[in-house]
């Protein structure tokens, strides 16, 4: 059995146990988290749209996108979006979704990432297969760094979860940045209260 | 805690230096053994002479043990460290009697510092490793030179030789997120009428690399050409460094392209005027 063979070889060859270091636990240099978050989000190829409340989103969606198939689980968007996507949905039926608007748990100022777990995605593939993705973030939801992010995630239960930072992108051809590789072509952050 | 670890690593040398300086007191009474690396001895005696004269000017009691040869680095870097025992023993014999050992080559000093061993006298080997200094760091850290009577009215490009810079930490490295400093830059700034030119790549390797210069000829030469070009582009009349081997390589390239730009060991500039 390779399992036993590998484990025996590893056990025989690993050095004496070395302790884990203390957590870095540093704070993000003081500054406005919202401002930092908005700046980073823009730098990574997404756009920030300030809104007073979630109720404004349907109107902004109409302005920003060309319609098509829109998916969201936000109650205020029920008029414009379908919301009956679930883990039981055949993912292949989502291939023609144009716009998806989701609410992540929180976002990270230092890298513009939004943390979203499976239960907020409808189906795992939705945030990836949709042509355009939008996330609704409030100022209080922004944490400084990934350390605080994992403090918040803690022992949280999920089957699948992701940090999503900006639109899908590639620079594989001569380091030229192209947005919209395989996932969403654009990422919009609706920043509530900006 | 982690921070301390990082610092300890980077500042080990400085702390060594301070401790030793305190113990030794008056720097004029110390004895210094001068190690002139083989290729400097053979090809660039002026760099050796300038080193000697500079130390003498600063009141240091310098001796050049006649029986010296090589630090053993050419062999060791080629994978033949096991053939350097003879070299090592000779080095210990020549130099262990001095308070300090100084050499105008970061590369050779780093090699001795990291790899000098002895079958019979490991304590002596360790002691040699602890007291060998590259010329620049000896000037800034042990002698704590604050001014120099030198004049060199030229535009100079400073090449940061890797072993001196990344090995001996003569200058801050661009890779690290840490405060900048440059010991050779500090000294060159004391030289009257000298203008240091900026470079696009402050600390890229020149491609000499010991036997690399012949074993990987194509890449070595290309690296050298690129490095030289950076200095030329910024108007350097002289390229200087704390390591003559890098300069020998760049000189070979400059002369092949019939450039009028010269190389000069930093000791010659600090001793000029």
């Amino acid at each position, binding site marked *: 059995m*390779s399992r036993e063979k*590998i484990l025996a070889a*590893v056990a025989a060859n*690993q050095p004496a*146990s*070395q302790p*884990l*270091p203390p957590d*870095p636990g540093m704070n993000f240099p003081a500054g406005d988290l919202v401002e930092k978050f908005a700046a980073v989000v823009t730098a990574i190829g997404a756009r920030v749209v300030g809104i007073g409340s979630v109720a404004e989103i349907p109107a902004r969606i109409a302005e920003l996108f060309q319609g098509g198939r829109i998916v969201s689980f936000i109650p205020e968007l029920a008029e414009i979006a379908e919301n009956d996507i679930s*883990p039981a949905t055949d993912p*292949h039926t989502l291939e023609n979704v144009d716009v998806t608007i989701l609410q992540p748990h929180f976002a990270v100022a*230092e890298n513009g990432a939004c943390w979203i777990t499976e239960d907020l995605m409808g189906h*795992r*593939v939705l945030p990836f297969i949709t042509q355009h993705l939008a996330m609704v973030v409030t100022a209080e939801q922004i944490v400084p760094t990934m350390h605080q992010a994992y403090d918040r*995630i803690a022992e949280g239960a*999920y*089957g*699948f979860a992701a940090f*999503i*930072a900006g639109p*899908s992108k590639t*620079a594989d051809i001569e*380091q*030229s940045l*192209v947005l*919209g*590789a*395989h*996932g969403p072509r654009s990422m919009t952050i609706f920043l509530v209260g900006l | 805690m*982690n921070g301390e670890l*990082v610092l300890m690593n980077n500042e080990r040398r400085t702390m060594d230096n301070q401790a030793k300086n305190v113990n030794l007191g008056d720097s004029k009474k110390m004895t210094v053994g001068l190690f*002139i690396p083989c290729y400097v001895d*053979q090809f660039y005696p002026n760099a050796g002479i300038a080193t*000697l004269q500079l130390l003498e000017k600063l009141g240091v009691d310098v001796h050049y043990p006649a029986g010296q040869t*090589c630090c053993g680095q*050419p*062999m*060791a870097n*080629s994978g033949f460290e*096991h*053939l*350097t025992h*003879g070299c090592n023993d*000779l080095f210990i014999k020549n130099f262990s009697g001095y308070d300090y050992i100084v050499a105008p080559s970061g590369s050779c000093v780093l090699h001795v510092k990291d790899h000098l061993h002895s079958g019979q006298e490991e304590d002596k080997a360790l002691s040699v490793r602890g007291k060998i200094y590259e010329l620049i760091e000896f000037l800034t850290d042990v002698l704590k030179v604050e001014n120099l009577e030198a004049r060199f009215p030229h535009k100079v490009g400073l090449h940061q030789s*890797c072993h001196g810079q990344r090995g001996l930490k003569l200058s801050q490295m661009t*890779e*690290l*997120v840490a405060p900048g400093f440059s010991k050779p830059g500090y000294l060159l700034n004391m030289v009257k009428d000298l203008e240091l030119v900026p470079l696009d790549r402050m600390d890229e*390797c020149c491609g000499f*690399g*010991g036997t690399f210069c*012949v074993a990987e000829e*194509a890449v070595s030469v290309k*690296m050298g050409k*690129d490095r030289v070009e950076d200095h030329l582009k910024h108007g350097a009349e002289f390229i200087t460094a704390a390591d003559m081997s890098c300069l*020998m390589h760049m*000189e*070979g*390239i400059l002369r*092949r392209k019939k450039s009028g730009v010269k190389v000069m060991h930093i000791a010659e500039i600090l001793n000029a005027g």
Partner: protein
Amino acid sequence: MMERTHKDHAQLSDVFNEDEPRVNWHDETLWWVRQKRDRAAHGIPEFELLRETASQIKNNVLSNLSDYLVQFEANALANGIIVHWAANAAEHNRIVHSILEKHDVKRIVKSKSMLTEECHLNEYLGGQGISVVDSDLGELIVQLAKEPPSHIVLPCIHKKKEEIGEIFHRHLGTEKGMSDPQVLTETARQHLRETFLTRRIALTGVNFAIAETGEFVVCTNEGNADMGAHLSDVHIASMGIEKLIPKRKHLGVFLRLLTRSATGQPVTTYSSHFKTPRKGQEMHIILVDNGRSAQLGRKEFRNSLKCIRCGACMNTCPVYRRSGGHSYHNAIAGPIGAILAPNLDMKEYADLPFASTLCGSCSNVCPVKIDIHDQLYKWRQVIVQEGYAATVKSVSMKAMAFTLSSPALYRFAGKSGRLFLKYAPFAVSNQMNPWYKQREMPEPPAESFGEWYKKNRN
């Protein structure tokens, strides 16, 4: 002794350097990535503390790896993941194939996995009649070009857009002469969307696996790993056993470092945490050793297993930038490849540790502080002692010639010092002399320092 059938690093670099403008372009492209890395790192005042912390976490991992593997396995099983163990590349490939056979699948889609490159999975599956489509854009390009990746993060960084345009014209039907990255990327998007939608099995790599939770994290910018995995009935994830980290919170440290070091981005677009299979989906993890447990036993070299595959050492390496990834003739190129490869086959890769000036820049950018250049030096000692230097003709013979001409060995032989000139590599003015080919020799002075000293100071 059997000679190697292919060229060594020095010979391959000679070929690469025949086109100097192209070398300049390659060097500058990768230097640009290094500069992006610097800007990202300098934006984090505590960056060096992060590196030190990451390094210590990895020390802890390597020193407790057997326990962490067992812990990870138990948690992954509890999460409903099927766990496999592969002692070597062949076993890994067989396991993948057996899963495909079980599901009667002949076509799969794969996101980036350097481990599968190391195992030559595509070739193996090809031989079994299985078609594999690489979905990372760079990997797709080199796959269509029938070449291996030349860089672990930027697989086709050696290719110019015009060449990629030609490949796309031939394989994907783009207009001849079209080389706009925007258009080429859009073409790949359309082409691969079809692939993602029709493949029942997707294979991904693994960036980090968490012992305490049994989950694993895959980082991409393109979203290709997620498109493959979430549309498939079966997700196979291949990982080297060294990819483990103890706790979920440690991702905070590693994800802050990984992409900043790799491309200068603050984080990859997607950091996907896979903990359980989707309802109705099958999820497999293959834990691969393939020499890692042996490397763990090499005291001087075990730290190489801390590598998180960011590629920073390649981008900063002045040799890599001027010799190209293929000159390393190994799945993993550059400085890190040069310290990993000899463990797998010392004879085959005896040349790689010599493909360096030991400048040390690699160790300085390494986010987990692997002492890469010190290990290059140490591998040289091992390779010479084990007698493998002799198989690397152009390196060792020239090196030996130089070594034997060193004044130390030479003076031990009792000759006079001036003869050094005759034997030094730069002392012979002919085209056979690798020094003289493109460089002038130093001009021998009238007297040596030693001679001057004797006259002037004694």
